[in-house]
């Protein structure tokens, strides 16, 4: 059934090479996007929990804006709109970027910033789930606000939220497929291209589906491994207070299926 993948395509490569190059773009987007999202997500998540309005308000705005606009629309904003609204010198420079990178960077930015808003909410949930005594003990030891967060609050919160971050990992690799709308030839786009070139739609989409399933399995196992390594002994995993305990269970329920919606 998958034999057609090893036939030669019009450009001299085999179809499976198309798939692999698509997989490469998908992984690159998901991997680098994840670290952008993780970094910004922690900062914004901390911002959601502090009293100081100069941090709390922008953090709240950030989450509201990036969570409530569809990823696809955000993708278009970065790709079409952003170069037009920045000063024209910068805009022109952006338009000069050669093809694959011209869609890769907007997609990276889009996915990173979007996922960051979701991670920020998880970080906030983790911080709010910590016992108050941690903060009070840090205060009693004379730690400054920064040191308290840096050495006491954030490390513990992150250890608590590993299980719920699994769904964000799943979310970001699934969302990479949205980048095909701005012309990035990632996995789904390559599958469609193969189906159009060979008319073997079942094979093409089937192969892509299997690859995505493997990615889901790997991501799920890796996160479970990390969770086992860093879990605070005796702690129950934190969930968004907003979703009560129900979604926590949804996220950890049956295997790779059970990741939350972030598509």
């Amino acid at each position, binding site marked *: 059934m998958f034999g057609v993948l090893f036939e030669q395509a019009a450009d001299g490569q085999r179809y499976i090479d198309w798939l692999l190059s698509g997989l490469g773009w998908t992984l690159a987007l998901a991997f680098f996007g994840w670290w952008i999202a993780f970094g910004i997500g922690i900062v914004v998540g901390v911002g959601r929990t502090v009293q100081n309005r100069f941090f709390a308000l922008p953090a709240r705005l950030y989450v509201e804006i990036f969570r409530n*606009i*569809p990823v696809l*629309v955000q993708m278009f904003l970065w790709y079409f709109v952003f170069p037009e609204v920045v000063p024209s010198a910068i805009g022109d420079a952006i338009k000069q970027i050669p093809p694959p990178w011209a869609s890769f960077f907007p997609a990276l930015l889009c996915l990173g910033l979007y996922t960051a808003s979701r991670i920020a909410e998880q970080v906030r949930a983790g911080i709010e789930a910590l016992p108050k005594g941690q903060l009070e003990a840090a205060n009693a030891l004379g730690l400054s606000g920064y040191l308290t967060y840096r050495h006491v609050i954030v490390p513990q919160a992150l250890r608590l939220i590993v299980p719920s971050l699994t769904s964000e990992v799943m979310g970001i690799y699934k969302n990479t497929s949205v980048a*095909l709308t701005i012309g990035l030839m990632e996995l*789904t786009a390559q599958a469609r291209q193969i189906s159009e070139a060979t008319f073997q739609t079942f094979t093409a989409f089937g192969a892509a589906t299997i690859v995505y399933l493997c990615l889901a399995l790997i991501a799920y196992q890796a996160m479970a491994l990390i969770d086992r390594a860093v879990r605070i002994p005796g702690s129950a995993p934190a969930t968004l207070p907003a979703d009560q305990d129900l979604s926590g269970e949804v996220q950890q329920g049956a295997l790779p*299926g059970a990741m939350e919606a972030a598509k």
Partner: protein
Amino acid sequence: MNALDFSIVAQSWPYLWSGLLFSLSLTAAAFAIGMILGTCLALAQHFEIPLVAQIIRGYVAIIRSIPLILVLFWFFFLVPIVLGHLSGNGRPIPIGATYTAFITFGLFEAAYYSEIIRVGLRAVNKGQFEACQALALSTYDTYRHIVLPQVLRVASPIILSQTIILFQDTSLVYVLSLTDLLGAASKLAQLNGRLVEMYLVIAVAYLVISSAASQCVATLRKRYAAAAAR
């Protein structure tokens, strides 16, 4: 950069409005199909119907692990073939992108809703089942009148959050060239070249609708939390 000119948006308002109506009706239809089917899927798993439960589990796991765009492509390709087989003559029946989108989103969301309801079913207090038995209610009556109403109430905030995500996801029908809110904006943008204004306006539209809906869900959630605390 050129000065922004939003008058173009005002002129094309009727077209955008019809796009928005399509997005909303797709959301509503997918919600209805997804909830009914999702409840059935969840119950089938809950009762551990042999074979059926395993198949459903596989279906839910696959649907939730692959991107929605790929699911759209799959259904766009499969639905006419399956319909052809069902109708008996074996030839694919093309039904058009619109119906495909409705079917796809319904079946896709069913997987997500079923997962929420399945977990909700597990959360129902055992005493409720025992009380039903003591009252000699049939299994059907137990679930219809006692268990499911409780599940739906407990899960309603999550179901509604999922529906907001669903509304945002309907923008992906763009890949099927349908005219939803985003599709309408992008078609207009290609016609008149005003893509900056168009995309900014619909971004704000999505933002306002989703934020307002999220606020409602948050209020609902608080009310339930207060009721539970009493």
